[in-house]
């Protein structure tokens, strides 16, 4: 043992070595970069306009005011209407809830059929679905508009729900197919020997033991659909514009004086739903996006 050492001998030195210091320094700098916008959003939304004009965007508010939040929610203007973001919030909810339910219901049954009840051609359709998910949406937008128009649902909630179901299908189906394929196939066989059919096996045996993947799917869909802009602006119709579209219309409105504090409050309000989901779900969120990244 070294005589110069005055520290207790242990498996691990407690002192921060230069390389450890570099690691933490790197992580800290990165953390600042990622946190800065959130911080700026919050402080800006709590300042009054005079303070914004005088101060700098990074300084904390000298006088905290919640008025921008109230304005953003209740009376911010998009073009001619000044009803605030609340309209968009409720629109987004009206789009979100049925879209999440329908898309997950369809995709979970799909994934189940694909993993346990393969039929001639089922893999072909699945492959088209997966490859199709890489096609830029722009390629399919116009014909979809025509189809919706022919069906008489263009510009309605139904249209936007259908569109979310369609474009959520590849990733969700992949997710459920892989999950069900990883469940012991003997459970499925046992249920068949017991005489259970297609729906009974799904509803009574497999679905009850697949709660985690349903949670992942819900998180994936809630964030994805809430954050959507393109489909909302095209398919939902003006009176159903989701929150993202309204937010953009408020912030990027060309008329009137720019109220940056109201804009930031509105931005936080719009980001709040997925952020809350993210902070609450943590592990599941990571699992969801990892599932999206891993090939089938």
């Amino acid at each position, binding site marked *: 043992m070294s005589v110069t050492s005055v520290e207790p001998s242990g498996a691990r030195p407690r002192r921060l070595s230069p390389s450890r210091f570099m690691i933490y320094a790197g992580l800290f700098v990165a953390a600042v970069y990622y946190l800065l916008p959130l911080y700026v959003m919050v402080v800006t939304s709590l300042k009054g306009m005079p303070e914004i004009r005088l101060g700098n965007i990074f300084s904390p508010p000298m006088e905290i005011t919640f008025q921008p939040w109230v304005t953003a929610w209740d009376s911010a203007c998009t073009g001619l209407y000044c009803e605030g973001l609340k309209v968009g919030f409720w629109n987004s909810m009206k789009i979100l809830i049925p879209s999440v339910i329908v898309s997950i219901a369809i995709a979970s049954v799909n994934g189940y059929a694909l993993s346990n009840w393969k039929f001639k051609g089922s893999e072909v359709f699945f492959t088209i679905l997966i490859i199709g998910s890489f096609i830029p949406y722009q390629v399919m937008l116009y014909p979809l508009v025509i189809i919706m128009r022919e069906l008489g649902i263009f510009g309605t909630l139904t249209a936007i729900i259908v569109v979310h179901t369609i474009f959520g299908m590849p990733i969700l189906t992949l997710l459920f197919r892989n999950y069900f394929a990883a469940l012991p196939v*003997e459970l499925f066989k046992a249920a*068949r020997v*017991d*005489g*259970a059919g297609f729906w*009974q096996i799904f509803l*009574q045996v497999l679905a009850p*033991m697949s709660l985690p993947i349903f949670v992942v799917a819900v998180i994936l869909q809630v964030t994805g659909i809430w954050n959507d802009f393109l489909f909302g602006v095209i398919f939902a119709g003006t009176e159903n514009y989701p929150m993202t579209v309204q937010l953009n219309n408020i912030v990027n409105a060309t008329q009137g004086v720019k109220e940056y504090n109201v804009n930031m409050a509105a931005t936080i309000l719009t980001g709040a739903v997925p952020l809350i989901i993210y902070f609450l779900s943590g592990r599941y969120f990571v699992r969801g996006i990892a599932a999206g990244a891993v090939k089938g």
Partner: protein
Amino acid sequence: MNKHNVSVSVQDLSLSFGTLTILKQLNLDIQEGEFLVLLGPSGCGKSTLLNCIAGLLDITEGRIFIKGKNVTWAEPKDRGIGMVFQSYALYPQMTVERNLSFGLRVSGMDKAEIDKRVARAADILQIQPLLHRKPGQLSGGQRQRVAIGRALVRNVDVFLFDEPLSNLDAQLRAELRVEIKKLHHSLGNTMIYVTHDQIEAMTLADRIAVMKGGVIQQLDAPHEIYNRPVNRFVAGFLGSPAMTFLDGTITAANGGPAVNINGTVVPLGRYGFAGAAPEAGRPVTLGVRPEHIAVGGASPEPEADRRHWVTDKVTLLEPTGADTIVWSELGGLPITVRVDAEKHFHVGEPFAYGLDLTRASLFDKASGDRL
């Protein structure tokens, strides 16, 4: 042949996926109340055959009868079979009671009858105290009983077991093996049991079907399979330590047939040929089980000793506890002999051993078939 006593009949069954043939023209009649074991290495098609009988796989050709009824295309539930899986496949979110009753509930049976049947099965299997537990709270043995119970409540004719003991440790496996055997005695149902474990096969089976490459190699009682394997594959698959195989050629010695193994001539006078004795010059393989070789020198009365004695050296010793496996040579080829652990040998010492040719097997070298 008395058709009434046949429980399961598989006729000309073939299964292939595209160009890949899994099962080839299988024929198999299983008697009422018989315990049949399908034995073979992994990939031999034994589990596939069981799944075909269960109706979980669609066959390509052939027919399957259960109790005289053609069930080739019937749904699994309509075949009168129950199945016990390797993982037991208990529904994890249901209690034992609901696991047992699931099939009956699905079929829409009335509650009173379901309760009666569950109670009876729980009684037979002694799992009444477990009825309200979830599978996750059960031991391996208890899970097996629930899995069997699931077949029992449905009053099935045939029990199918798909390697039910493979996931367990050696001790539990031995215990549960005995339980299955007892259950077969008390229930008397036909049972078809898939395994790759020769001990399970030997101890449980009325008859064993040894499979390889989608073909049944031999279908016979366990002792027949062990003592008179029809080919080199069956001979090598059963027995531990494995049978010793010695390649040689047929010669004539002292008027009778013999096999010449690199110059060492072993007379085959006492060997029971399946047909006519093969002609001289034919390449053959002589198979001898380690436990069919005696040590300790020739009997005082040579004419009473039916063995052929050879003397060589001990090359290696493998003590296993109860026995010791002695490695020696015959005509330069390695041969193993199972001896009592109390007898002491040393590597390099001379070693005399006597081959019992009445219990040996002789195979054609090219085809591997028994001669």
